[in-house]
């Protein structure tokens, strides 16, 4: 695993009013990274590169030409090879997890997933509600893939049966599914059956409702509470209701040009709105709730490809065959800006001829330009080209993974470590240390992990010995040293200034007076904190000793499996459950053998 150290900026873990008892402010990196996956038009290969450092590049072999989809929030990429009956999968190497006020980003190399799918003509892909659903148009089924497992490089799938094979899709709605439905009229040879509507079905394929008419059903997208799908008579919307999916046909209004329909749809992720084509030269902004449901935008030329702006829901972008890119304002349903960015690509000929494809990467539009052998980077604000990336062959279908986030796994700046002549007293995985781990990584620990003679750091805080630590936090954080001191004043506060642990005996010293008791393991509890990170409390219950000694003690030291502690936070009391809710006061202990200066050094180095 390698990391991107560019654009590193120190960011304190704590924001205003922290509630989490994390004792250290690790320096974090704010990382923005977009990774572009491009499928070649002619050759069976997919090229991936990092947008701003395109020399970081990987090539993957496939069976045939791939249409690419970034799924599961960009953690994985699906390569659908319709003409070659194959689907390959890649982990993008970038995972993003939203945590309220920020996102976390994790970056590794992209990799091909060993397992793949084969089957008759895979086509439409839907990524919704943790499921990636691929329709096999000549198989009469859809494969449902677990998105989370896919993000970990595992392919776990089940099949959803359809009544008759057709070019269609299946999508999860609440606890049920909806699937497009083909006519049961016989067809000549291997001609595809016509498509008549949409139907709710159970996971076993059994109908769960009537077929809603949607003639020629094609194209689908999710936005907000709705799925929308294109039909000859209008756009059918589907939402989850208490008695199963609710389907409603939004008919094309009279003021739209006649004889056209919507067959391709995009759904916004941050506003409940769809953008669809309307014929070859028109677009429609579709509002599933408020009227007018359709607002029509006529384009100067036929559309090559279009995309919605993930960063600013107001805008979409559309490339027309004259080689112009247009910025579309969805709120006002108008083209607000246009710029010529490539040579013309006529829409005459086959739909699958090599033509540009668009994708978004933050505030840039990335566009494959097969004839030029380039991926172009275009500013979404100005529509000016900000760069090009050469890609061998004919770059065609394109998908982008990535975004911005905080890299919790990043180590603090190397020079800082050196400057403080720091040596870790315990060997920890920094991600676990930050509170990001899987349950399977947690293991029981024995009291011996905390054996030793320990001092409270609260007196050091009170005496001002820890002032340099607070200054250091203030320099790298968003609060003043005074605010940090106030925070730690609450966190460290205790009158137990020394603890010794030997065998099963724990002795608490309160103003020099000992209180001794024996403890045995009582398991552990996993806590989820405000930031979305987690911690494990290792709990020990009193088995004998002083009456006044606490019934429970709970250790928290950022480790989740057996290892000797370098320091720890200790919670104690007689109510096991109440202690778990204590997250503001976390008396903290370092080895008694360390002096104040050494503890300061340890704290700053973390």
């Amino acid at each position, binding site marked *: 695993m390698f990391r991107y150290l560019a654009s590193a900026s120190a960011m304190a873990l704590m*924001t*205003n*009013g*922290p*509630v*989490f008892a994390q004792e250290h402010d690790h320096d974090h990196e704010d990382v923005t990274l977009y990774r572009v996956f491009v499928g070649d038009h002619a050759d069976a290969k997919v090229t991936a590169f990092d947008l701003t450092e395109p020399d970081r590049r990987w090539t993957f072999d496939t069976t045939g030409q791939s249409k690419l989809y970034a799924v599961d929030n960009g953690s994985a990429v699906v390569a659908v090879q319709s003409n070659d009956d194959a689907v390959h999968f890649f982990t993008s190497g970038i995972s993003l997890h939203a*945590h*309220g*006020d920020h996102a976390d980003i994790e970056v590794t190399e992209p990799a091909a997933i060993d397992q793949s799918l084969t089957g008759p003509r895979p086509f439409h892909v839907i990524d919704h509600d943790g499921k990636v659903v691929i329709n096999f148009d000549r198989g009469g089924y859809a494969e449902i893939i677990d998105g989370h497992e896919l993000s970990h490089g595992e392919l776990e799938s089940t099949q959803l049966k359809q009544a008759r094979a057709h070019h269609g899709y299946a999508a999860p709605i*609440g606890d049920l599914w909806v699937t497009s439905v083909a006519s049961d009229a016989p067809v000549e040879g291997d001609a595809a059956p016509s498509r008549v509507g949409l139907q709710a079905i159970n996971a076993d394929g059994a109908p769960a409702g009537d077929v809603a008419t949607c003639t020629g059903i094609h194209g689908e997208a999710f936005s*907000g*509470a709705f799925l929308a799908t294109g039909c000859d008579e209008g756009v059918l919307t589907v939402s*989850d209701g208490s008695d199963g999916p609710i389907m409603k046909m939004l008919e094309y209004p009279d003021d739209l040009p006649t004889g056209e329909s919507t067959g391709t749809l995009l759904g916004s992720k*941050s*506003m*409940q*709105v769809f953008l669809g084509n309307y014929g070859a030269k028109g677009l429609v*902004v579709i*509002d599933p*709730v*408020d*009227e*007018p449901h359709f607002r029509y935008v006529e384009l100067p030329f036929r559309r090559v490809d279009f995309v919605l702006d993930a*960063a*600013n*829901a*107001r805008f979409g972008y559309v490339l027309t065959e004259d080689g112009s890119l247009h910025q579309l304002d*969805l*709120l006002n349903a108008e083209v607000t800006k246009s710029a010529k960015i490539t040579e013309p690509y006529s829409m005459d000929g086959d739909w699958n001829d090599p033509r540009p494809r668009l994708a978004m990467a933050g505030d840039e539009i990335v566009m494959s330009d097969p004839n030029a052998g380039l991926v172009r980077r275009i500013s979404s604000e100005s529509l000016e080209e900000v760069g090009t990336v050469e890609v061998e062959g004919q770059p065609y279908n394109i998908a982008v993974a990535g975004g911005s986030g905080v890299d919790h796994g990043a180590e603090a700046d190397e020079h800082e470590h050196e400057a403080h002549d720091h040596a870790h007293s315990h060997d920890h995985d920094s991600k676990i240390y930050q509170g990001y781990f899987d*349950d399977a990584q947690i293991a029981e620990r024995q009291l011996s992990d905390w054996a030793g003679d320990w001092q409270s750091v609260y007196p050091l805080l009170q005496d001002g010995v820890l002032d340099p630590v607070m200054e250091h936090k203030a320099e790298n954080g968003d609060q003043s040293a005074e605010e940090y001191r106030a925070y730690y004043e609450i966190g460290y506060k205790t009158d137990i200034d020394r603890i010794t642990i030997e065998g099963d005996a724990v002795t608490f010293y309160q103003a020099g007076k000992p209180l001794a008791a024996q403890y045995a393991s009582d398991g552990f*509890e*996993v*806590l*989820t*904190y*405000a*930031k*979305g990170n*987690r911690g494990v409390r290792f709990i020990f219950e009193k088995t004998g000793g002083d009456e006044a000694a606490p019934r429970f003690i709970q250790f928290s030291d950022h480790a989740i499996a057996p290892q000797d502690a370098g320091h720890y936070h200790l919670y104690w009391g007689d109510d096991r*459950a109440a202690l*778990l*809710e204590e*997250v*503001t006061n976390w008396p903290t202990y370092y080895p008694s053998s360390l002096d104040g200066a050494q503890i300061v050094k340890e704290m700053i180095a973390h």
Partner: protein
Amino acid sequence: MKDWLTRIAAWSAIAISAGSALHAEPLKVVATFSILGDFAAEVGGERIALRTLVGPDSDAHVYEPRPSDAIALARADVILTNGLEFEGFMSRLIAASGTEAPITVLTEGVESMEEPGGGHYHYVDGRAIFHAGAHDPHAWQSATNAKVYVGNIAAAFCAADASGCQSYEANAAAYLADLDALDGEIRSAIAALPGDRRTVVVAHNAFRYFETAYGVTFLSPQGVSTESEAAAADVAGLIRQIRETGAGAIFAENISDTRLLEQIGREAGMALAGTLYSDALSGPEGPASTYLAMMRHNTAALATALAIQ
């Protein structure tokens, strides 16, 4: 309700018919949810044209913003939000709208409470959804805090429309007196209850400010385990807590379905004692169509349930 273009056009129509003759253009105000909308209407009176995004009986946590919301923000003079990460949809909506209106955070000046588990649970369609946040956003559940909201609204309106300032301040002063009276009513209603009858159960922990201000303890499933296991794991703990504390009643909430509460009620041997209004007002025909009515309804529901031995 459907045609938002007409509705937005109606803003100016309302202005002409309802506004005073001195002001052709009312102050265009957007409030993120119904409780803030009621405060704004009290302070703004006829001088404002108000649009509330998240309507009655709706949960702001799962709200899906619409294009018409973005257009309303773009045209607004004043935007009122609760803050404390209550309106998760707002930042992207503000970005899409390109609005230049000032965003007034009404909890500014409220002494906010920390969230003990780093967040709280919402219950949507039988599923527990964790709403992460360092601070408890439901500050309006104490009438004292509501006064801070109202003061902030008056200041925002005055800043945007100086000529109406006197009117806003007069409206606010009258309403603050109502809030003082409300505060007194709640205190005496709770004080009249037997001392050992002060604990109730809710699903969504939205009443901690009420609890701190008025001394009724609200138990709810606590969020300390992982998301997928939250509902099951925490319910067991809650049942134990209910038995230990001898909680007096269990309440549904207007923004949540009752599945989880019915389960808790069954296991704890309690029937639902009624509905409390937490994050949204009722519709105009309901018992909580204004903030004052909501707080009185909640207080009466608590007092009735806890008075029964």
